[in-house]
């Protein structure tokens, strides 16, 4: 009975999946067609809206240059460092805020109010503290992703089903066992969601910083292409950036978030 329902559900999901995919493809193709018509019509400057073919060639040139991969590597390393620093500090802060009602009430308003503030206003300070190089970019990314990760860790800490904690206590689990076998696995789905959110925001923070003031990274390449008005190259860079963001998200998605809940 349950499995029959499951099969039906899956079949329905698969059917819906085809429909969703079709809508996506139609939208993408029509956007590309609109772009192409705009480019060919000459309504806008050709240089601002280059034909798809030109962008395609620029992408090929870009992907066959070594400098691109080196700069991509710099950006990826910056984002990962930002996520590692901001994420671990954010997680620990969240556990503290979620675990202690006192700290939560005392300190969480700061995080709520600072969270939506555009972190780019801290960039000048970061440059003074960490220099023009990757240091200030990592700091920007870390500050950005700290907030969503701290908030989601605090929320997941509060959402733990208390009966599971009582089960652990009734079997006389020690503090370490409680943390590793009950708290962490129970928090995992929503913390993974926070990390996925944090990753997106770390990418935004890092790249924004790169486009402001830097000497390497994808953001730097984009600004460089823009300053010499090489639009096809700039669009090609943006496409690689989309691909990078999508890929990063997919990797985090694989590591959890979809554990079988109740």
């Amino acid at each position, binding site marked *: 009975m349950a499995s029959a329902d499951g099969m039906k559900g899956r079949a329905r999901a698969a059917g819906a999946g085809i429909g969703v995919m079709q809508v996506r493809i139609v939208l993408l193709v029509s956007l590309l067609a609109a772009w192409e018509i705009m480019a060919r019509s000459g309504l806008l400057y050709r240089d601002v809206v280059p034909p798809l073919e030109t962008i395609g060639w620029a992408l090929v040139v870009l992907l066959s240059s070594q400098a691109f991969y080196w700069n991509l590597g710099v950006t990826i390393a910056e984002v990962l460092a930002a996520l590692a620093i901001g994420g671990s500090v954010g997680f620990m802060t969240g556990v503290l805020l979620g675990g202690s009602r006192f700290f939560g009430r005392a300190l969480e308003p700061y995080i709520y109010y600072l969270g939506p503030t555009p972190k780019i206003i801290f960039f000048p300070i970061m440059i003074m503290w960490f220099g023009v190089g990757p240091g200030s970019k990592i700091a920007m990314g870390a500050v950005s992703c700290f907030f969503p990760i701290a908030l989601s860790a605090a929320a997941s800490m509060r959402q733990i089903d208390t009966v599971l904690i009582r*089960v652990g206590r009734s079997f006389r689990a020690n503090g370490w066992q409680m943390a590793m076998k009950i708290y962490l696995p*129970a928090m995992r789905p929503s913390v993974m969601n926070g990390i996925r959110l944090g990753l997106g925001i770390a990418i935004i923070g890092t790249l924004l910083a790169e486009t402001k003031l830097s000497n390497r990274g994808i953001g730097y390449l984009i600004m460089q292409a823009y300053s010499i008005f090489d639009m096809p190259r700039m669009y090609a860079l943006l496409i690689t950036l989309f691909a990078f963001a999508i890929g990063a998200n997919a990797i985090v998605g694989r590591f959890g978030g979809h554990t*079988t809940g109740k």
Partner: protein
Amino acid sequence: MSQASGSGTPMSDRKHVLSADNVSKKFDTAEGPVVAVDNISFDVRPGEFLSVIGPSGCGKSTLFNIIGGLTPDHDGTVTVGNEVVRGPHPSIGMVFQEESTFPWRTVIDNVCFPLEIAHVPKAERLDKARHFINLVGLNGFENRHPSELSGGMRQRVAIARTLVSQPKILLMDEPFAALDEQTRLLLGDKVLQIQQELKQTTLLITHNITEAVQLSDRILVMTYRPGKLKRMVDIDLPRPRTSDVVSSPAFGAYVARIWGDLREEASRGMQDSERAR
């Protein structure tokens, strides 16, 4: 605190495995202090099935938490063997009323949990877990997650998980409260069969009269607020028992008698909750 002190005398030589002496618990609420459990004393004999029954709000669950060692701040003492319960005790295995399986663990990993906590080697862990999964009739579901099981099956996982730690006393708080009546009767059969097989001393907290009479050797009836001991009823129904016992005249007589005791308490409880509305 260790099990060592309990190893001196064989279980059967002792008159009782668990005793509660003058156990009381008061809660401070917005409307003033409420006495949840008032001076309750009773013994649990080895191998017996004792049920504590009372209307909702009589402090049954408080008593459950006190005996399980999860409510340290109470008056009176609970002793297991010769040891006073001051926290979760290895001789007491708890089964909770709420959904308590770990959703991220498979059935077998759920059942292995207490053995992992006790650092039992993996091979032994799996052997024992399989044994108790068979005992509750869930063989074939070892690798499923709780979300793939029915509520009754999940509750059996929770029971197997507690039994695997081989407690001297199985302490259950309305484990079947969330299930429908038919499933409850069938699970009652399962519990009777398991108890028969393991000679498991069991203390069941419940508000269901049929369930209590179907399963128990003795039933402790509690009063509504403050929760006192109203009466101890011996259930002289033959063992081994099955849910068929429900249709016997003796069963009906016990149910009627316990309802006679409970009726007044339950109606006081109902009046209270209606007044609060």
